[in-house]
């Protein structure tokens, strides 16, 4: 799969997640429901091919590894991403992060407040967890993309 196709497919998947899954997550009554949704999200994203899992894309958690590919469309000033992770729940949570920032401009990305968004989705405890799950590292990586060349 070429990079353009991968970015386009991920873009479509992230848009779908934003429209359908976010309201479901917000309304989930119990953690089981929330987890079932999170695990579906991971499956909706196209996987990053093994040969593209380069060291510089690696975002390390203590327990599992994740990869973030970033593409900045400079003409339109829009940021796009491709995500993969070994762990499914973490991948679902990262997919939510990404669907919130997907297609943002550099200045929007720089201003983006992930904590607030996760708070509204009742997912904030996952951000305050120790480095274990790699979510805070992923959030920092996404944020850094706003100033990437």
């Amino acid at each position: 799969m070429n990079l353009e196709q991968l970015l386009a497919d991920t873009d479509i998947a992230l848009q779908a997640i934003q429209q359908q899954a976010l309201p479901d997550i917000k309304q989930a009554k119990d953690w089981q429901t929330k987890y079932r949704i999170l695990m579906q999200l991971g499956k909706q994203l196209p996987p990053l091919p093994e040969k593209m899992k380069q060291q510089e894309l690696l975002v390390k958690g203590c327990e599992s590894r994740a990869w973030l590919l970033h593409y900045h469309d400079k003409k339109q000033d829009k940021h796009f991403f491709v995500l993969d992770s070994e762990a499914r729940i973490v991948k679902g949570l990262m997919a939510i992060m990404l669907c919130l920032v997907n297609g943002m401009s550099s200045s929007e990305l720089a201003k983006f407040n992930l904590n607030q968004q996760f708070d509204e989705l009742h997912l904030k405890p996952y951000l305050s967890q120790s480095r274990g799950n790699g979510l805070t590292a992923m959030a920092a990586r996404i944020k850094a993309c706003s100033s990437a060349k």
Partner: protein
Amino acid sequence: MFDVSTFRRQFAFFRHHHDWVYLDNAATMHKPDAVTEAVTGFYQQNNSNVHRGAHSLSQQATTQFEQARHTIARYINAQHDHEVIFTSGATAGLNQLAFGLMHTVLKPGDRILLTQLEHHANIVPWQLHCQRHGVIIDVVPLNNERQLDLNAYQQLLALKPKLVSFSHISNVLGHIQPVQQMVTLAKAAGAITVVDGAQGVVYQQPDMQQLDCDFYVFSGHKLYGPTGIGVLYGKTPWLEQLTPLYGGGEMIDSVSFVNTTFNTLPFRLEAGTPNIAGVIGLAAAINWLQQYNNTQIIEHKSLLLNAFFQGARQIKGIAILSMPVHNAGIVALNVDGEHPSDVADILNQQQVAVRAGQHCAMPLFDYLALSGAVRVAFAAYNTLDDVNQCLLALEQAVEILTA
């Protein structure tokens, strides 16, 4: 008969947290009141620096501190109190050993022998210094039961390693290594013996004179004691040959810019103000623990372990890596095809505390060709109810993950 409910009631954590099933005991254990009270009591009543004050408060603190050393030396049956060196933990002990033996004892071209299932703390310190000093590291492989391959061990001993360092109990699998036999074989081959007792010390009271190893390290917090305190035990002649890793106060005899001479044991290896409250807390843990019969504790833990094995084997989709025999109470497992952190995450939602990942033993996981595992580690204060709740939580994890 060991009464787990009486035992458990002595832990403030469990009195306050009825809702948690704590099975991350191989990472750290909870502390009984006897320990927290000893630590608080020291700070509230006796706080002073040791070995240096010109006042009686310091003398009292010193007496209490050295009494604690004596308690620990007796517990592990060291020949002398000064053979108990206080460190910040097992990791610090191994770093002191690797640093302190290099050059004086270990020379370029020498070999040392480690094993495939060591914790990084018993690999990396050796690697750091061996690379710089041209010392070669050999590794004992595992057999099909994921125990150390003793035939291979003997073959590697024939290469005449200067030093052998291995753990008593695998921190991932829980398997108990035949330490006594391994020490005897290593000594017969002329090697210095180092035992990593991080997981072993709580399983079985270590007897230094019987085991006859040259060095033994452990951490206090895995023996009901405080964090930040540990012991490096060594036989006197070997301790005397160690180059101190840290220089500073208390460890010196005289200092000039031309030459510095060192204090006697144990002080020459204990630079700076020690973790006094930690030492007192560790001695309190040992004094407290000694009122219990360890054979009964071992029986209780194997009851838990067997119940867990029985239950876990019936959950479809669970692959158990540990063996139930010669096991100190640790079970590594996976849900087929799932990442261990997902399993641990779902257990956490159900307030079952376990650890997931590679548990600071990457070479072991390379060998097992696995990316990690969930680790369930039982302690004496765990109950059959804990086992059942963990099994239910695992069933739920399998159900959610394979839906």
